[in-house]
């Protein structure tokens, strides 16, 4: 009678350990040398390099211009003089065509709309009229005379370097994308005052179809 008892005990133990709910370890693999890259992968730790005395700095050399960025360069640095000068900068990006408008709208909704609102009313899901978690009121891009009058250059300066509680979006939007989003905001502002006839993106969409 002792042996079945032991067997039952072992089986229950096995069952209990097999049912551990949370899997905190990634487990093993057949051929680790094939599964794990020998080369440095994205986000790999560079600690080993530093230990081996290799000088490694993830930052680009000062003055580096990203490929394709030369046309959109912005001359001013992140200081109060740069902010003051920014108002003289005009948008180097040509007016958005229908496809670019859709892309700019997509970028705006992902990166800006979360605070500034889908309708550019400064009331996105993070603010919700003060009920959301974001403590500061985001700028009312359409309707507030201050932002209606803000030049494209100043907008670009704020998006690039951040302003007050708003952070820098230079890491999330490329220089060209930032200029495109600013076009989008300006078009929306123009549309709100009825001066939208010149751009009319939806009408442009149908003409683009026939053109292609």
């Amino acid at each position: 009678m002792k042996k079945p008892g032991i067997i039952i005990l072992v089986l229950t133990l096995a069952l209990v350990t097999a049912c551990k709910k949370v899997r905190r370890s990634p487990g093993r693999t057949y051929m680790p040398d094939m599964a794990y890259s020998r080369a440095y992968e994205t986000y790999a730790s560079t600690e080993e390099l530093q230990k081996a005395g290799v000088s490694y700095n993830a930052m680009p050399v000062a003055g580096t211009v990203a490929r394709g960025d030369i046309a959109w360069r912005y001359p001013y640095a992140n200081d109060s003089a740069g902010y003051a000068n920014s108002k003289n900068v005009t948008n180097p990006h040509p007016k958005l065509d229908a496809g670019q408008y859709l892309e700019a709208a997509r970028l705006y909704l992902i990166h800006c709309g979360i605070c500034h609102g889908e309708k550019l009313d400064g009331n996105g899901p993070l603010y919700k009229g003060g009920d959301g978690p974001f403590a500061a009121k985001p700028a009312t891009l359409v309707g507030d005379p201050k932002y209606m009058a803000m030049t494209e250059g100043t907008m670009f300066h704020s998006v690039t370097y951040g302003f007050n509680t708003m952070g820098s979006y230079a890491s999330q939007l490329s220089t060209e994308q930032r200029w495109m989003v600013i076009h989008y905001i300006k078009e929306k502002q123009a549309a709100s005052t009825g001066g939208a006839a010149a751009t009319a993106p939806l009408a442009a969409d149908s003409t683009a179809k026939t053109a292609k």
Partner: protein
Amino acid sequence: MNFYTVPDLLLRLVNGFYPQFFESTSAMIPCKPTGRRVIFLISFFIVSVVNIWAQDGKALFMSKCASCHNVFKDLTGPKLGEVLDKDQYGGDTKKTYQWIRNAASMASSDPYYSDLKSKYGSVMLSFPDLKDAEIDAIWDYINKTYAAGPGGGKKPEGDTATGDKKSNPNAVIFGVISLILAIIALILMQINSNLKKMSDDAEGIMRPDPVPFYKNKVYITLFSILLFVVGGYYVTKGAIGLGRQKNYQPEQPIYYSHKVHAGINQINCLYCHGSAWDSKHAAIPSVNVCMNCHKAISTYEKGPKLYDENGDEINGTAEIEKLYKYAGFDPKNPSVWNPSKSKPIEWIKIHNLPDYVYFNHSQHVRTGKVQCQSCHGEITAMDEVKQVSELSMGWCVNCHRQTKVDFNYTAGKGNKFYSIYEKFHNDIKNGKMDSVTVEHIGGLECQKCHY
């Protein structure tokens, strides 16, 4: 002071002197109509004025102050809830008029000025257009909001998250029952053989000693077959599972809840993982992306209670403070923060593909228009993320066999690349095939993913 007491009193007076006032309008008309109307109009007027005034405070605060000030938190400027209590104001809103209309002019007269300037690094904008009454309305709104406490005095939402703990009570009950039954069966077998022996002894039949069960060939054979089947099952299962990480749910350096961010607060996946649109990797956001919002969100108070997988409650505010430590950000002194000094957070990668598999996020998300959730599961409901899909080759191949490609280029949008598949376009036109799957355009070719 409650603004609604005055009109309330008036209404009560009206009710007291003219009890029939609200009973019927027909009764009201013949007896002294003018007097009642006047009182009614006056009270109505007061109610509406008070309402407009109270609303104005909030509206003015939202349009003029809220982009830099919060009632409870220091942002670009100090929290306004306590400002009026300073010695130099003593609760008197009149003493703040000059500051609000032209803050820079206060440099010599207000002791508070230089402290603030050094702490926040800038001087408040001037609001020369604000009238006395408007400033009073703003302070009134601030005082009321501050007295009500954060969240408007509302209690935080009940913990809806606790219902997630799934344990299957049926399985436990079945296990216990089968164990008890097995023990009973063994005892019965023992009793049976003992009884048989006793009856044999009584009847005087001599039988050979019974073979013990561990030498019984039938038992041994049955046991080996059972062992083979059960063992084989587990060995095969384990071998298939080698290198697969389904349900992998590592503990991250910061308890980051996708449910709170992507679910409740509706932040788009691509806000943080934007490179899933542009590149092979769905990149992990750098600390400055977190700080875009968390410069202004320093506490967790409005969402549901959070629990980790062990059921322990998580303090959301403490987790945000962990982020500040990585970022080198001091919420009490936000203007001196230098983003370039922040340290990366070493998040643990959950979805790992072996090095011999090529996978491209952009190809799936942008070109294939696959939703993030189709592979990563219901991320918007996960506090701690775990791997939901198997990420095995069979799983990939299955999806490539079933997923239809949006071949429809002629509508002016769509992918022009697919126009080169003339044969398929003709077959669709002739009705030979109704749709094209990823398999048809080479989605099952070995070297597409292994090279």
